[in-house]
């Protein structure tokens, strides 16, 4: 008798170190800047120093004759290309999209707008020559504030968008009904919030390298891209007007993206067109940090007016939200979806609010374009609703924890429709995360200490901030998010191919791709368990349009729940086929075969078995297959999710505010998250860590500032404060696990949760510490001066 095979170690749930890290941290990775092609040339852009101006003339005569210069081109040289596409226009309303061209023609609308491009043999020559291009400008008045941009008399950016309005959109109940509920409320609060503009700041900036093949007419584009297939599609169909197969897009290793690498940018089309103009010499553009800050997309930038109605018991009875969303100088690729679907439809948060309405006006201003940035709409929504909870607490005297408890959607309510047009929330137990968080942080004791310090008149006051969040990820069912519904101009499914090669080694090709999330590890863990094939025998391929069938890309915390499910289903198909073949090999009926730990066995007979590797060999060589069976274990799935997923949790932040200087010390940061089932806890914790750092930094440090003339005052890393490890608190993490039924793995998504939760947790903590000393709201980031001024204004 053959001994039963030892059950292999389960990989899912294991805190494996990321298999990609040795490559990434020892210089073995290939980032875009590492791509060197024979004959490669370098592009540098001539940019506008003005936020708004007419281009009177461009004189490139001196630049053209400088050493190494191969050509200088202006906007007129690219008029055969269409403007960049507006891929997500808000659903159900009129949009006025004005997208950038490769180079601005006639007029510029933001500082850094490219008006000419130099191509030279090396990058230094290109930049020297770009500096020598003489542009004559007729400056025009600028506007940088979204609300002011829509007011009478504001400078106008685009004829196609009167009053600079991109779109007006609303969701929720009728205004009359909400007004009536506000009027009837025990407690009425009017409030004003600013969610300031942020600059995504991936460690690696953006760039493109394009090579045109004159023999075939094909283009290859290496780009920092979170969505190579989408870039191929949009560039081919909308910008160049050529078949998709004429473009191959490759995304090399990436040093972060945070959303800013989802979009189609001018330089992608420029390098492609330039390579063709140069007869096929590759053309590279690699932005420096200043260019990244000026011209790559920014995030957030909302101005919001709130009307809140509440019961004396802390119940939120009515909420009216009016938001002005700044979209910047032009319409970026998916800009309209962020302040509408991903913001407005999430403002209800984890609460049952009977009368809720959100109105959004999106506006053009003379600033960098604003589009999805880690969390994309949900951080803005969480900031609103979590501040609302604390404002209600302050106005009613009910404890902030109790306000949340009183309004929570309850476990038995799921699936739950919040009444603002979002898909029904899948599952949750919000109160459990709150209870855990309060217990672990020692909430009662902290409140006592807070009271004691206030009573004793101590200089350092304590603040406790809660944030119970829910977010939407795993985007998204195509028929909901697409043109008939939310306006996204395509589907949002995902694909995966799984091959078990003759040797028993597995190659998974996925449309999802990493820019720091560890896909290669998590996906291999998943496949290893499902196939019973060793983890090390599984390779994950991604990031090349020529390899994967199609992929909509990585954003919206969708890779595991959507891309992973496509893999899961392909593996199922492989197992189904292998089962048939195993039955044939074992001369048994298929119904009598079991599959466990990579071994097909005949029920009741421990001796009759075949490993999946043996079956893969038989499938591949094809010597003896059942009637009608095709050789090879090779299965593809196109998976469209039936719903989104809705991770949630409660974060608590404890701060100490020095009332003398306004300085803030972060004493504790505790997070209880529920992201559904967890494939790799180490990776999930890492995502939560990074997310908290980024969201906390919005509250504490970051903020893009333009002056009234549209000059970016925070244009370098010496001015714009991204968080450093030494400025961050120790994170105390815990989890609850509420699986989702949306996908077979029960996973929800973890990439953005930390960012969404942490900003309001810190905001509530700071306002909680000094709330009794100030009137109104302290604007983020909470610089010491702002806190000091708020305290001393009283």
């Amino acid at each position, binding site marked *: 008798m053959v001994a039963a095979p030892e059950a292999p170690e389960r990989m899912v749930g294991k805190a494996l170190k990321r298999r990609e890290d040795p490559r990434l941290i020892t210089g073995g990775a290939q980032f875009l800047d590492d791509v060197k092609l024979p004959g490669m040339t370098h592009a540098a852009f001539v940019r506008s120093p003005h936020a708004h101006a007419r281009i009177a003339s461009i004189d490139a005569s001196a630049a053209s004759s400088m050493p190494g210069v191969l050509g200088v081109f202006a906007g007129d040289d690219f008029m055969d290309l269409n403007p960049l596409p507006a891929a997500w226009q808000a659903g159900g309303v009129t949009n006025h999209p004005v997208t950038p061209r490769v180079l601005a023609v006639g007029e510029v609308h933001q500082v850094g707008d490219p008006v000419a491009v130099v191509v030279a043999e090396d*990058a*230094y020559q290109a*930049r*020297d020559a770009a*500096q020598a291009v003489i542009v004559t400008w007729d400056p025009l008045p600028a506007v940088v504030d979204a609300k002011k941009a829509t007011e009478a008399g504001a400078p106008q950016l685009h004829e196609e968008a009167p009053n600079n309005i991109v779109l007006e959109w609303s969701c929720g109940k009728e205004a009359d009904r909400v007004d009536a509920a506000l009027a009837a409320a025990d407690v009425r609060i009017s409030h004003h919030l600013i969610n300031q503009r942020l600059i995504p700041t991936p460690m690696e900036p953006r760039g493109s390298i394009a090579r045109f093949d004159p023999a075939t007419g094909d283009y290859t584009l290496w780009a920092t891209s979170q969505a190579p297939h989408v870039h191929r599609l949009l560039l081919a169909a909308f910008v160049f007007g050529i078949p998709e197969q004429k473009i191959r897009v490759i995304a090399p290793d990436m040093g972060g993206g945070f959303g800013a690498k989802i979009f189609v940018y001018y330089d992608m089309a420029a390098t492609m067109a330039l390579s063709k103009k140069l007869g096929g010499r590759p053309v590279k553009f690699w932005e*420096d940090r*200043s260019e990244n800050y000026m011209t790559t997309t920014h995030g957030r930038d909302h101005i919001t007016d709130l009307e809140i109605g509440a019961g004396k018991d802390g119940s939120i009875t009515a909420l009216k939200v009016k938001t002005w969303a700044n979209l910047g100088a032009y319409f970026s690729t998916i800009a309209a979806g962020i302040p509408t679907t991903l913001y407005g439809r999430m403002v209800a948060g984890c609460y049952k609010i009977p009368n809720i309405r959100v109105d959004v006006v999106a506006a053009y201003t003379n600033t960098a374009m604003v589009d999805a940035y880690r969390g994309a709409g949900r951080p803005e929504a969480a900031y609103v609703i979590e501040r609302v909870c604390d404002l209600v607490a302050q106005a009613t005297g009910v404890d902030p924890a109790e306000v949340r408890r009183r309004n929570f959607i309850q476990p038995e309510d799921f699936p739950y429709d919040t009444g603002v047009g979002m898909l029904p929330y899948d599952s949750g137990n919000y109160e459990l995360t709150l209870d855990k968080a309060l217990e672990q942080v020692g909430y009662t004791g902290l409140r006592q200490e807070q009271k004691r310090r206030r009573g004793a008149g101590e200089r350092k006051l304590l603040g406790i901030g809660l944030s119970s969040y829910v977010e939407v990820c795993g985007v998204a069912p195509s028929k909901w998010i697409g043109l008939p519904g939310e306006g996204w101009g395509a589907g949002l499914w995902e694909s995966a191919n799984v091959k078990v090669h003759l040797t028993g080694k597995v190659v998974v090709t996925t449309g999802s791709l990493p820019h720091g999330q560890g896909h290669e590890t998590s996906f291999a863990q998943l496949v290893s368990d499902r196939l019973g094939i060793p983890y090390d025998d599984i390779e994950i391929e991604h990031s090349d349009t020529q390899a994967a069938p199609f992929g909509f890309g990585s954003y919206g915390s969708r890779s595991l729940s959507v891309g992973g499910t496509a893999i899961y289903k392909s593996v199922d198909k492989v197992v189904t086929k292998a089962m048939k073949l195993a039955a044939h090999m074992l001369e048994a009926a298929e119904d009598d075969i079991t599959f466990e730990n990579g071994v097909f066995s005949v029920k009741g007979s421990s001796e009759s078995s075949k490993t999946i590797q043996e079956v893969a060999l038989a499938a591949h060589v094809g010597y003896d297959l059942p009637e009608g069976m095709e050789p090879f274990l090779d299965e593809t799935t196109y998976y469209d999710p039936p719903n989104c997923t809705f991770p949630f949790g409660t974060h608590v932040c404890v701060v100490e505010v020095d009332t*003398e*200087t306004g*300085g803030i010390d972060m004493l504790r940061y505790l997070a209880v998250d529920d992201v559904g089932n967890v494939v790799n806890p180490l990776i999930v914790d890492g995502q939560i860590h990074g997310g908290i750092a980024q969201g906390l930094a919005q509250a*504490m*440090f970051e903020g893009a*500032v333009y002056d009234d003339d549209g000059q970016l*005052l*925070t244009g*370098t*890393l*010496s*001015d*714009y*404060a*991204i968080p*450093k490890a030494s*400025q961050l608190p120790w994170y105390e993490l815990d989890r609850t696990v509420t699986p989702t039924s949306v996908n077979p793995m029960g996973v929800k998504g973890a990439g953005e949760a930390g960012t969404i939760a942490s900003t309001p947790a810190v905001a509530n903590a700071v306002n909680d510490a000094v709330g009794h000393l100030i009137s109104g709201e302290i604007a983020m980031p909470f*610089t*010491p*001066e702002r806190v*000091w*001024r708020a305290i001393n204004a009283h």
Partner: protein
Amino acid sequence: MYPEQFEYQRPSSVSEAIGLLTANPDAKIIAGGHSLLPAMKMRLAAPAALVDIARIPELKGISASGDGATIGAGATYRELMDDAALAAAYPVVAETCDKVGDPAVRSRGTLGGSLAHVDPAADLTAVMLALGASVTATGPNGARTIGIDDLFVGLLTTTLEPDEIITSISLPASSAGTKQAYEKHSHPASGYAVAGVAVALQVDGTTCTSARIGVTGAPEYAMRATAAEDALVGKELTAETIAAAAEKATEGLGELNGDVYASAEYRAHLVKVLTRRALTRAAL
């Protein structure tokens, strides 16, 4: 980085370096490079040549005791932090270096570079004012000594001649073993001083016999808070006298800096608070 084209020269002695500077008026000295290189990257500075003095042996070395200290201008912040004798006599130097930038900056940046550049938000400028340092500047006509009070004259401006190099910095015996402290409010992005206050006090019993206070970050360039110093000398060092002196810390500093992060008004407040905290920590 894509600076404009420049020549790079690495002399092996101070005299060779001075020769290179004299020969090329558009040349700039580079030591740690942490101020100059960022400006060159952004093409805000475009020197024709860089004269790299970072590896000149004469500019290295620290010798310190209770009778004073002599520090090579090329000593890095890291080297200043690691010198035990310096730390014993002038602890505020190591304390301050620990608050400069990040490990990379501390390993590259030099004391001579900081004093010659006079960034308005540098840290060691204030400390050298408090300790009453003097610098030795060497040029084509030889060496001369400049007292720290006569070195800084404006934003990024010193009394050094274009072809003079700071070769060493001396700290006097009178400030060795004094009661010292440096309080700083760091910019969250750059790490530079939004306001920084260095104090060095001599006491007899509990009476202050001498006080030097250097302020950086807030004023146009590092300056002494002489009104606050005067308010301390001859007084008992109590919480009350310190608080009263600190209230005078902005007198004579001129118009203060203000930017997106911190206004002049807030910096003035910070200077007073930091002065009080530095004095309190040093003296009480």
